[in-house]
């Protein structure tokens, strides 16, 4: 597949005209912000880093996808250290769902080569937009109401407890509707492979709406998982030459720093605060991507 040579050249902005030093600094700062937001909401930051690189810095979509996949691993790894120590991440739930997401990621990468960049933009934008509806519907909720016990979840040991700093108490929880969550995770993995994003929005939403876990557990566990899903795809992007070392380096450093900060904030912020910050950001990005998909 040969992408049109003028694809990104047409949208070169002031940022990409910077000298190398200024460009590196801009990439460091921008990626630390996306890493922080990504780790807070369990989205990995891919939803933000791809439009940032293509629209803001005029980077070719393939380089943006390669860099994004590496930055997703950085967000996941940088955030996991502190969310694991604070017991917000549920390792068992993460590993069970990883079986489905890694399989889906392989499938998605195989499909990605068949689609033109404009199509990818359009699909990406619509996927984001669709994920906003349930996100907005849960804005006021701090913790999910208790539901009926799921025998499968009990059998798999999918329960846990974390200490909520904001509520000042231990929050016990159990997963629900695991049989429905697994095929949803397979789809989330496929999307992540196709678009070079963490597809964390789908994973968080599935854990939040279907499995009914506390939001912090959902975002932290999504973050824990997306590193592995991205690692499965990253090798393929590396082989295709999509990972530009000098472009990826500042993004990795900025993302790691931002993700570590975001993970610390996660334990201290209210769930509704986090959703309120992130919702308009994702809306803006999804609109940009859909427009780009329609007018390549």
């Amino acid at each position, binding site marked *: 597949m040969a992408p049109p040579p003028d694809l990104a050249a047409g949208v070169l902005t002031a940022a990409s005209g910077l000298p190398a030093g200024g460009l590196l600094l801009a990439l460091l700062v921008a990626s630390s912000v996306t890493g922080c937001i990504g780790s807070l909401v369990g989205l990995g930051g891919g939803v933000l880093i791809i439009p940032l690189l293509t629209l803001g810095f005029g980077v070719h979509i393939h380089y943006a996808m390669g860099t994004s996949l590496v930055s997703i691993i950085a967000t996941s790894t940088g955030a996991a250290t502190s969310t694991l120590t604070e017991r917000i991440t549920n390792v068992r739930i993460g590993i069970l769902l990883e079986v489905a997401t890694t399989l889906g990621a392989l499938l998605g990468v195989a499909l990605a080569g068949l689609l033109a960049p404009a199509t990818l933009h359009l699909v990406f934008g619509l996927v984001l937009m669709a994920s906003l509806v349930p996100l907005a519907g849960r804005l006021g909720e701090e913790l999910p109401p208790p539901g009926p016990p799921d025998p499968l979840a009990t059998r798999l040991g999918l329960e846990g407890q974390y200490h909520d700093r904001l509520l000042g108490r231990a929050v016990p929880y159990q997963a629900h509707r695991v049989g429905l969550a697994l095929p949803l995770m397979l789809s989330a993995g496929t999307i992540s492979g196709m678009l070079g994003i963490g597809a964390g929005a789908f994973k968080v939403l599935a854990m939040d709406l279907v499995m009914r876990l506390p939001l912090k557990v959902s975002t932290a566990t999504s973050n824990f998982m997306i590193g592995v899903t991205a690692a499965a795809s990253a090798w393929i992007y*590396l082989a295709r030459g999509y990972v530009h070392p000098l472009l990826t380096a500042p993004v990795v450093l900025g993302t790691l720093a931002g993700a570590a900060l975001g993970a610390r904030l996660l334990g201290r912020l209210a769930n509704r605060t986090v959703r309120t910050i992130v919702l308009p950001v994702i809306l803006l990005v999804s609109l940009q991507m859909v427009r780009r998909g329609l007018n390549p």
Partner: protein
Amino acid sequence: MTGPHPRPGPHGAVDPPGTSRRAVEDSLARLLGQGVCVSSTLVALGLIASLLTSGGASLAPAHLSAGPVPHPGGLAGAISRALAGPDHGLIVVGILVLILTPIARVVAAAVLFGREGDRLYTGLTLAVLAVLVAGILGSR
């Protein structure tokens, strides 16, 4: 505990509540932290070295907007080209360490669950590892 695979946990009587689960979480946290440290150090050093020698020439807008050129040789070829490229060796090694860290975490989780005698989660973790390996082999 009525499950077929007894494992210590919050509802188990084997250990004080959550002891072994916490040990697994702490071990994984330590491993991921070490991966971040090694990777970020290599990437930072490589970035500085790159700027000092070439001044970041490959970050020129024309180069970034043109996109990657397809090469034969797959993953091994891509890595060896990147390593041989102008001053990018350290960055590439740092990025490889970062990509390997979640995979190392999966291996570590399989070992930790195995040591706990948790056959179900050892099996699930090994299944994840098998898909990862298939993905890496498929990218050749």
